[in-house]
């Protein structure tokens, strides 16, 4: 029985396993292999086993500056989305009294997720630009004389766009964890003399741990892997880890692009495994 049912289960997962093998495992493995190849002008890829690409990248201060800038954006965005995701979910789960209202409000937050990221990104232009809504408004009420230049094409607009695009990835997993918390626990804590703040800190926060971990995983990987937002919204002023890859690809220098991709991948996977060490995500998901 168990051997037969194991075989049936393997047949059911086989299509997914095949797709992931062909379009994830093999491609990523090849990126690793190509990262040791040599690049030759006009020829392109030359099979080899050299650490030159890695050496070039790691000895170049630009690489370090780009990664530092990406890590800066990641930490800022992580902090903002964490605070927003936690308190927005807290509001929906513990303050909205009717379940249907909470679900409705939750859907209101999720709908933009199903629309184009690029459109949502460029939709900040008429809002933040020199002649944008915010500058017009502030000038209209006389707060400022000259339009603020730092609103668009700056680190500020990059962070605003990231928060706009990615808060949902933090909010949904946290909402999911919080919705499973038995409300009786909160009342018990209050009865036992906890303050409302104490309940949030000692009961709600620990029980939302899985959601926070999953959300952080999404936000970190999305910001670190992004190249569209930082390119368009910084107006070319800021770079990210991916802009180096982008440049190398334009000159068809696949080996160095691959080496850079491997570095990025290793950093992302290290962060991910750190998060998985903190919480057993699988146990939480499958239960």
């Amino acid at each position, binding site marked *: 029985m168990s051997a037969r049912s*194991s075989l049936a289960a393997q047949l059911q997962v086989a299509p997914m*396993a095949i797709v992931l093998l062909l379009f994830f495992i093999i*491609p990523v493995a090849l*990126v690793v292999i190509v990262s040791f190849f040599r690049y030759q002008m006009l020829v392109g890829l030359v099979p080899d086993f050299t650490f030159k690409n890695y050496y070039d990248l790691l000895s170049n201060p630009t690489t370090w500056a780009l990664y530092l800038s990406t890590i800066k954006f990641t930490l800022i965005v992580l902090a903002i989305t964490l605070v927003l995701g936690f308190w927005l979910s807290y509001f929906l789960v513990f303050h909205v009294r009717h379940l249907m209202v909470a679900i409705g409000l939750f859907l209101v937050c999720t709908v933009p997720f199903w*629309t184009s990221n690029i459109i*949502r990104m460029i939709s900040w232009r008429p809002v933040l630009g020199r002649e944008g809504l915010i500058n017009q408004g502030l000038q209209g009420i006389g707060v400022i004389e000259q339009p603020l230049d730092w609103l668009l094409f700056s680190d500020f607009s990059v962070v605003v766009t990231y928060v*706009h695009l990615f808060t949902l990835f933090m909010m949904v997993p946290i909402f999911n964890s919080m919705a499973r918390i038995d409300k009786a626990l909160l009342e018990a804590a209050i009865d036992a003399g906890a303050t409302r703040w104490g309940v949030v800190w000692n009961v709600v926060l620990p029980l939302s741990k899985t959601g926070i971990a999953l959300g952080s995983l999404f936000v970190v990987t999305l910001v670190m892997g992004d190249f569209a937002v930082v390119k368009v919204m910084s107006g070319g002023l800021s770079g990210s880890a991916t802009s180096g890859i982008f440049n190398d690809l334009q000159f068809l220098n696949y080996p160095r692009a691959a080496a850079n991709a491997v570095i990025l991948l290793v950093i992302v996977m290290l962060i991910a495994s750190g998060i998985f060490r903190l919480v057993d995500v699988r146990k939480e998901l499958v239960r």
Partner: protein
Amino acid sequence: MSTDRRPWTFYVLATLFTAFVIFLYGPMISVLVLAFQGPSGALTFPLRDPSLMWFGEVFNPSRVGDVPGAFSRSFPLAILVMLLTVLVSVAAGFGFRRRFFGSTVLFYTAIASLIVPGLVLSIGVLVTARFLGVSANWFTTGLGAHLSWTLPFGLLIMFAVLGRLSPSYEEAAYDLGATRWQTVMEVVVPIVFPGMIAVALFGFTLSYDEFPRSWLTIGTKNTLPLEIWTMTTNVTSPSLYALGAMTTAISFLVIGLALGSIYLIQRKRGG
């Protein structure tokens, strides 16, 4: 409880929530409004002599890119990804209900496929195609690259859906004499169906809007997100917003269809 006065935190968080919703929708609405800019209108407010001219401009290939062509690739691709995502991830979701050899490896592979940066995957798929000597195409390499991202999403949703499907329902059906096929069609599918629609919605929209995984994998002819990406640097007229408004309208249509049908199913069941 319901007669209690609301604590002050309710009002603070309600304000935060409202501000967040404005933050989410405000820019989108401003683009939708500016799409109706008149001939003398700029990329910013105010809206001058509202017109539909920029919508017409979208279909003018000499000014903008080949939008109808891009759409004629993006839409079938999204439909294909949607169908395959439902089939493959629903099957896999059921497979994961039982212990099988390699389940942990497959689970973590799926998670890794979900979080690998899209650009890295894009390079990988392109390099793979080169080694195999095939050219990149939206319906081969592009399709695979999209699936590597929609299938893990679909699997996670199926975990959430199947977590609520107790095996005792199926056992009860068998005990009452149902065949395997009857059990699947009359017990399992009705319970899982709304979840399958959610998987379909994710499959369609993730593919329809996907940019990094499409970038190097779709070959020489652009899909819609890449066409829009090119336009963000080349086109400086409100036709960019008009295109944004149209593609957002299609997204809203799909979302409306999906959520509407889930709502109808739930209501039919309740009544």
